[in-house]
């Protein structure tokens, strides 16, 4: 089976990652709740067209999905996906005064999670020497576009984390 030796990853690293996934999920949910309560943007499906126009990139997690689960590939994709979301969240700066604290917290936790994975890959000598090509960030030209972008990014991040959480739980199984 494509499964790499799950045991090559320290249990404490996997437990920390699981905790960090849940922390980022909680932050993401908080951002979605506030976007809905404060700006009435509650349904990402209403913003698909705008999302296409803005060109919000998605992060692939094929090596973490159950059919093609592959440990090291999954770690790489997890790290580049988190780096992408960190940059997307940064591009949303100025979303609105009410949401700024929630957005900052989410961005800090996503950054922390990306660093945890990067350092573990370095410790295993698996960190890619050449940084992966970076997707171009959308430019948001109005407060509304930042809020709509925030709703779409939070929704995409939620699905990304669900896949990551399932994979990490699988790797952490003793």
């Amino acid at each position, binding site marked *: 089976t494509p499964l790499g030796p799950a045991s090559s990853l320290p249990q404490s690293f996997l437990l920390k990652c699981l905790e960090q996934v849940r922390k980022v999920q909680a932050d993401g949910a908080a951002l979605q709740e506030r976007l809905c309560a404060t700006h009435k*943007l509650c349904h990402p*499906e*209403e*913003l698909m*067209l*705008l999302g296409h126009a803005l*060109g919000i990139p998605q992060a692939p997690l094929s090596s973490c999905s159950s059919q093609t689960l592959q440990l090291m590939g999954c770690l790489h994709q997890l790290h580049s996906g988190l780096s992408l979301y960190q940059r997307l969240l940064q591009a949303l700066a100025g979303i609105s005064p009410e949401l700024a604290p929630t957005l900052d917290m989410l961005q800090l936790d996503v950054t922390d999670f990306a660093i945890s994975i990067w350092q573990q890959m370095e410790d295993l000598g698996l960190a890619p020497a050449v940084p992966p090509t970076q997707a171009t960030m959308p430019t948001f030209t109005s407060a509304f576009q930042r809020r709509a972008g925030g709703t779409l990014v939070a929704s995409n991040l939620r699905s990304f984390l669900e896949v990551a959480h399932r994979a990490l739980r699988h790797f952490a199984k003793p």
Partner: protein
Amino acid sequence: LEECGRISLPASTVRLGDSITASCTVSPNCSRLGSEAQILWKLETEPQPGERQRRLEDGSQESTITLPPLHHPRALLSCCLRWENTLQILDQAELVAGYPPAAPHNLSCLMNLTTNSLICQWEPGPDNHLPTNFTLKSFRSRGNCQTQEEPIPDCVPKDAESRCSIPRKHLQLYQNMGIWVQAENALGTGKSPELCLVPMDVVKLEPPTLWALAPSPEVAPPQPGCLLLRWELWKPSLYIDQKCELRHQPQLGEASWALVGPLLSQTLQYELCGLLPSTAYTLQMRCVRWPLPGQWSDWSPSLILTT
């Protein structure tokens, strides 16, 4: 990046009850529906009929709509597009409605000798539903505030308080100054009537302190039906000439206050007579700057003595 849809409004703030005409321009490649993209408007969650749509030279579609009179201070306007049987939001704008600020009223000021500042307060007037900035403006003047000499820096109240305190360094305590409050929001400005005052004439005195004079070798015990008293002015106001007033009433029963005054502001010993014997009396005192103009202090805390 191509602008997908953009709402434009004549003004983001209008008067409550006014109606507003908005337009939304949708660029061709965003809608990917070719020319016949159907633009729809929503106010909060209510679809708004009656929009007029036209094609511009550059191929984008422009929809214009005149909304019904606004009766809510805040409303969210959405420009949408029907796409694969979903309603896609392309842009949103928050409509803000309210009134120009009423003129603030009941402006009054007191000179506080503890903080050494002139503290003014006012009534802001009815809520106009808009973010409104209040500023206390003042200027020095020779005559009765008809001519304006040097302006005094604006006094900006702390978060939405209806009071502001002008620090000592901006004040000339014995000169006339004109003071008014200005309220400003997106729809206009309101100005309170102007006060013309001399800070020292509006000093707020703290009441004097009243003591009973205990009989002692130097102090003979009081006559029957009399009480021996002493009082001291509020320390920070010792430099101000004042006159005082004493009021007393039997502690029990319904008798109203009896007033004694004017009394000198400084006495070491005062005998109050003409009272009912062996009766408990409640005594209070207050003082005012005198003969120069001033404001009466509050009545002092009660002193209870028995004849």
